[in-house]
């Protein structure tokens, strides 16, 4: 029972790191980025190449995956995404689906279509018992890393000048612009950072979520659920939503395996009906 809770928390934390970049994109620019999972996949494959083929240590692989994915994110944001911000939602959906299709085919071409695994250090494998709870070492690592990231994000958002600029821009981009905040610059930086986090999440999660070229499509729904359910006004909303979904998904698959996948979709639809603006959203200011 507690083991399931533990696994669920690990899964939820992972989802949060994967999806929090998306929550900013959606909240700040009102931009539907279905291709967010493609950045996560990029991070996963970069780590794979570095660790399995080049023989780099696992943690170095993670760090490089974060940096490289952030760079790719910045590149795409500056060259392509920037032209699509003021188009309607339908165009945004089509544009990002196009990117997803391209990424799937390209990765399939370069890396092959089979599922791959990143070699993790022996010290992180296996599980141990603590007060009767079975704790997987790798999952513990995920919780620690993601937990630290969450705290860091929260501190950045609430404590730094950049954080307050970002919050102002999310709340009301027009007024923020009027106050002289460079909303586009804030956004570009956040987009790159969010992509980097997604890449890190993809690399960390390859062990649990699996990694193959269809990754962006398979988990697109999960990311979107986290964001729509959590709302985009704070970091706490998506965080709690991710935990809720992680625990519900793991518990659902364990207790009612026959209906495992229903649980999460049903939760999403019910929540959207009760709270169309998201679970923790304030009344929209726009």
């Amino acid at each position, binding site marked *: 029972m507690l083991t399931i809770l533990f696994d669920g928390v690990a899964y939820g934390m992972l989802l949060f790191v994967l999806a929090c970049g998306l929550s900013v994109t959606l909240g700040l620019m009102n931009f539907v980025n279905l291709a967010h999972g493609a950045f996560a996949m990029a991070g996963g494959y970069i780590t794979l190449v570095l660790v399995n083929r080049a023989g780099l240590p696992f943690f170095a692989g993670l760090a490089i995956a974060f940096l490289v994915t952030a760079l790719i994110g910045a590149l795409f944001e500056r060259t392509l995404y920037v032209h699509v911000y003021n188009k309607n939602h339908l165009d945004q*959906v089509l544009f990002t689906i196009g990117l997803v299709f*391209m990424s799937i*085919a390209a990765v399939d071409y370069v890396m092959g279509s089979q599922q791959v695994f990143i070699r993790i250090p022996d010290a992180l494998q296996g599980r141990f018992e603590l007060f009767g709870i079975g704790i997987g070492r790798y999952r513990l690592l995920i919780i620690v890393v993601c937990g630290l990231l969450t705290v860091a994000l929260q501190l950045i958002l609430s404590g730094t000048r950049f954080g307050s600029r970002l919050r102002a821009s999310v709340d009301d981009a027009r007024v923020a612009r009027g106050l002289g905040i460079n909303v586009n610059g804030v956004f570009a930086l956040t987009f790159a950072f969010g992509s980097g986090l997604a890449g890190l999440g993809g690399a960390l999660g390859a062990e649990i979520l699996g990694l193959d070229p269809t990754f962006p499509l398979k988990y697109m729904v999960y990311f979107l659920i986290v964001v729509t359910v959590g709302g985009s006004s704070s970091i706490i909303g998506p965080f709690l939503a991710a935990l809720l979904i992680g625990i519900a998904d793991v518990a659902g698959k364990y207790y009612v395996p026959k209906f495992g996948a229903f649980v999460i979709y049903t939760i999403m639809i019910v929540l959207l009906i009760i709270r169309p603006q998201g679970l923790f959203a304030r009344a929209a200011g726009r």
Partner: protein
Amino acid sequence: MQPAAVEKVDRYLAGRARWGALEYVFWLLALASIWHGYFHLPERYLILTEIAWLGLFALSLDLILGYAGIISLGHAAFFGLGSYVAALLAKHGIINEPVLALVVAGLAAAVLGFATSFLVLRGSDLARLMVTLGIALIMREIANQIPEVTGGADGLQGVTIAPILGTFAFDIFGHVAYTYCLIVLFVLFLLARRIVHSPFGLSLRAVKGNPLRSSLVGIAVDRRLVAIYTVAAFYAGVAGALLAQTTAFASLDVFSFERSADLLLVLIIGGTGYLYGGLIGAVAFKLIQDSLATFDPQYWQYWIGLLLVFLVLFGRIYGAIIAALIFAVARWLQLSFFECALIMLAIGLGYGHIQKGLKLLDGAIARLVGHARSATPMLAHRKP
């Protein structure tokens, strides 16, 4: 309103609802394709049949997207349900006659559409995207979890379709199948045409334009949306049933996300809000897909994605031209996907300049057309 003004509006609306010459040409061409296929291209029937049901499916999406402004990423839910219902009815011999089974499959999808329309009504574009997507995924999961009924991941096999109306048996070349699909498409198209030109259809357009204002002039917004969503679900169900009947097979693939995404692309290629968009888009999409698949059988999805990106960036016409150019250059120089992506980024970087150039080109074309108009007296009095 003045009686004279009412009359004017009436006349205008009647004029809009009248059949244009191009429409006759379109359907005569469709009719001709039956004979043409019969004598010259029997092996093309498969793709023609696919175009017919895809066109119907896209028409269904056009009804909600083009006329009511509802974005859906899960239209495959209704398509798939119709498909499975038709296949199951035929397999267990409940309803043998295909046309009747078609209607029943469509009605089943309509019931699902009616039930879920209340969920779709709520919330913003994003919530709608999520809910429609979620419904399609749930449908897929249901079909996956009851293999004793649906055949699970292996698909529903052993379906035999009885002759249409008891007389026309499906032949091995697909001649009957294509004719059948085309007739169904035409009948349902007539119905859709009637719907969108009725007062109901006009009120839908008002809702699409501005829901708040249209509710102020007395249009029951929610009820209109529920109605059109249900009708669209019926159409999608029939399209799915056509697929199941012409292939005598149904599989989980009918619910897939790619199907809903491809459908959006079909409609975007053809254009929304004039009913022919879905049909023209279906023809174009299948031709593109077919030729891409012969050039690059394994990775044709890459080029579809590239096409989508450029359609959004540069509009329908120029986007398609640029994507085609990149494709041609990539084939000519044997470029890798990576290099193509770099080209894409470079074009994104020069976006502003390219847009400026295209505007100049637009102006030049408009001037040329203007000259041609004034030079030919027949066209001169018609306003563009």
